[in-house]
């Protein structure tokens, strides 16, 4: 009897500790945001705390206001697609359409998002060429003419083809060094194993001198130094919506685009306080633009 009590108390101890944490998160992919009273859920298939989550929390949810329901965090884009196809709840969010729309073995990508669910371009993020601040001999001239310079890139899927095409069109002798995340390529630059980064991030210890974004007038536009037809194109995440009318979804997108929060967000991530000009296109024209741009990228893979 005594032993059974002991066993029970130990079990209770563990369950209590477990339950203590049930109010919020357990898994690596679990956000901790409170639910709202509305009926529009916000999707999240990337790691919480990352760029898309920050966008969700600081821009999309405040823009939804009373319509916000909850964050639907599902691990992986393939499972998220499964969920989105089978739910009858309203869902709105950001989708990395470019990287999840690469055909796999000639078939549709498991993360493929149908164009009918794309509401509009969400925003764009440019690529920069950067070196460590004060690094001797580094800069635009060396980037163009330096023999065997090593350039670190985001080596994931479609982005690798884009980076390689632009960099090699500028300097054919450059070595392209792929990294899977910023946690790997930022130390790569800092340790000196690469001379430059071609990436979205910039830090105060870097000097960035070229950009794909024409809005970044303090840098040389890649389009002026490269003959690659994608040298002046950014990457464009899109807003997607499920179980909502396009009118309702477009209204949310417009509210987000018109908000001060999105501009503040850009400023925090060191980007110009401006939306890409393509946002002003009609939805059909945006979809056509995305499709063509994406096809250009696929051709490079």
């Amino acid at each position, binding site marked *: 009897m005594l032993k059974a009590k002991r066993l029970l108390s130990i079990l209770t101890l563990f369950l209590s500790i477990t339950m203590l944490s049930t109010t919020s998160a357990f898994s690596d*992919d679990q956000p901790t945001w409170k639910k709202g009273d509305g009926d529009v859920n916000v999707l999240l298939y990337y790691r919480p705390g990352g760029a898309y989550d920050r966008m969700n929390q600081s821009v999309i949810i405040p823009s939804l206001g009373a319509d916000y329901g909850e964050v639907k965090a599902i691990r992986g884009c393939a*499972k998220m697609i499964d*969920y989105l196809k089978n739910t009858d709840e309203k869902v709105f969010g950001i989708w990395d359409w470019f990287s999840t729309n690469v055909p796999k073995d000639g078939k549709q990508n*498991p993360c493929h998002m149908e164009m009918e669910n794309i509401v509009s371009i969400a925003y764009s993020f440019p690529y920069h060429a950067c070196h460590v601040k004060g690094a001797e001999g580094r800069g635009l001239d060396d980037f163009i003419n330096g023999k065997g310079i090593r350039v670190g890139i985001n080596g994931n899927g479609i982005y690798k083809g884009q980076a390689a095409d632009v960099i090699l069109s500028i300097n054919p002798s450059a070595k*392209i060094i792929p990294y899977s995340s910023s946690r790997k390529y930022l130390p790569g630059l800092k340790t000196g194993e690469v001379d430059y980064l071609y990436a979205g991030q910039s830090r105060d*210890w870097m000097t960035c001198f070229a950009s794909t974004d024409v809005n970044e007038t303090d840098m040389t536009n890649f389009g002026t130094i490269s003959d690659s037809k994608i040298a002046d194109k950014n990457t464009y995440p899109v807003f997607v919506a499920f179980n909502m009318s396009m009118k309702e979804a477009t209204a949310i997108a417009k509210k987000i685009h018109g908000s001060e929060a999105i501009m503040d967000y850009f400023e925090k991530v060191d980007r110009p306080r401006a939306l890409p000009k393509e946002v002003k296109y009609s939805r059909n024209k945006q979809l056509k633009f995305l499709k063509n741009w994406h096809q250009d990228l696929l051709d490079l893979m």
Partner: protein
Amino acid sequence: MYELIFAFVLGSGLGVVSGIIPGVNVFVSILLAFPLLLTWEPTSIMFMYISLASVHQYFGSVSATVFGIPGSNVSFPALQEGHAMFQRGKGAEAIMTAAIGSFIASVFAIVLIHFSIPILSIFYQMFNTHLQVILLTLACATIIIFSDNKAWVSFILWCVGNLLAMVGYHDFFGGWDFMTFGITALYSGIDLLPVLIALFVVPVFAKAWNKGGKIEFEGVSVSGYLDATRTMFSKMKTTLARSSVIGALAGFVPGISWGLSTKLAYITELVSRKKKGTYNANGDVHCLVAAETSNNAGVYTSMVPMLFAGIPITASTALVYNILLFQGMVPTVAFFQGLYEIVLVGFALSSILGLFIAGRYVNFLKILSGINIRKFYSTIFVLLVFICYYTAQKVYAGMDNLVILACLLPFGYLIRKFNTMPLIYGFVLHDIFVEGVYRLYFFY
């Protein structure tokens, strides 16, 4: 001031909980406090983070040693050695020495970093892809050669670990689909928890199940602590020094940091003990101390790239970095350097706390004495299955984890006679190792 005290209490509390429960790591614990942290000053956030990460290391080994539960991703050495000691009635010694070793390593790391500040950039620049691949190769090769199995068995187990880690869709390797069979749940890969439970914990439990018997567990006293400290200083000097240095240096490696610290220090000690013929196959206290010592040193040095270069190199420090971005901070190098002292104080205080409460926790566990070992393991196993489901269900993947666990369990039982550590090493180190080798190809 009150916010700092609260940050310390919260960080330490979450460190205890996350150390005990598998699947709840430092990253997840910060997520738990995410909404709260958004309202805090940067100093409090860093204070909370370092307290959490430090105390987490103390308690991860406690639950691994006593319950056979891998409380954290770096607890396999504690499970392998500490739990074996627990099974032969040496659980209190295992926890006590691990806690003392961790504390000594923490002090070492503080002193090392403090006096190395002028040359930290040189230190840091050494840890490029080349050195990372060398360290990871050494880690894998030595665990294959020096585990208890025949080398070819360990090699096969290591390969199996790698194969399991390869399951999924790999964007980084040009959109390579490996053994997903079109099942969407497998596209993002297999979770660590079902693999750990089925292929590492179950073999350990199965061996103990066959032996049967009752649990013997003695508590510790202050004099016990002092005696253990004296003994460690006289008999484990080399282990403590070597593991502290390995742990501190490996903590610089991006992406894996103190995880690599633990693995390298453990296998270095394992090799040394086996060569001398002093390794105790029924739980080796030197190997346990080596592993637990190194991860505490690694936790502190993993902060260095963020504090002195503005670069987070672990998932949890990246999350802290993002919280600061959320708040609208401009996270410059100068900004982070300004937080160095608060991190130092937080780490020192949490190390003292970890040493103290790990001891109290040991005494509480005297309640286990006399319990039938089969009932004990049955209970723990049920609890682990529940945790495996529950942790993943938060992202709608609970059933996925249970199905994977069910598929792997028979294999875990079949390989119960082997030391499955090489398999776990293969699984855990796969991504960073393969990426490093792949990147080297582009360098040459």
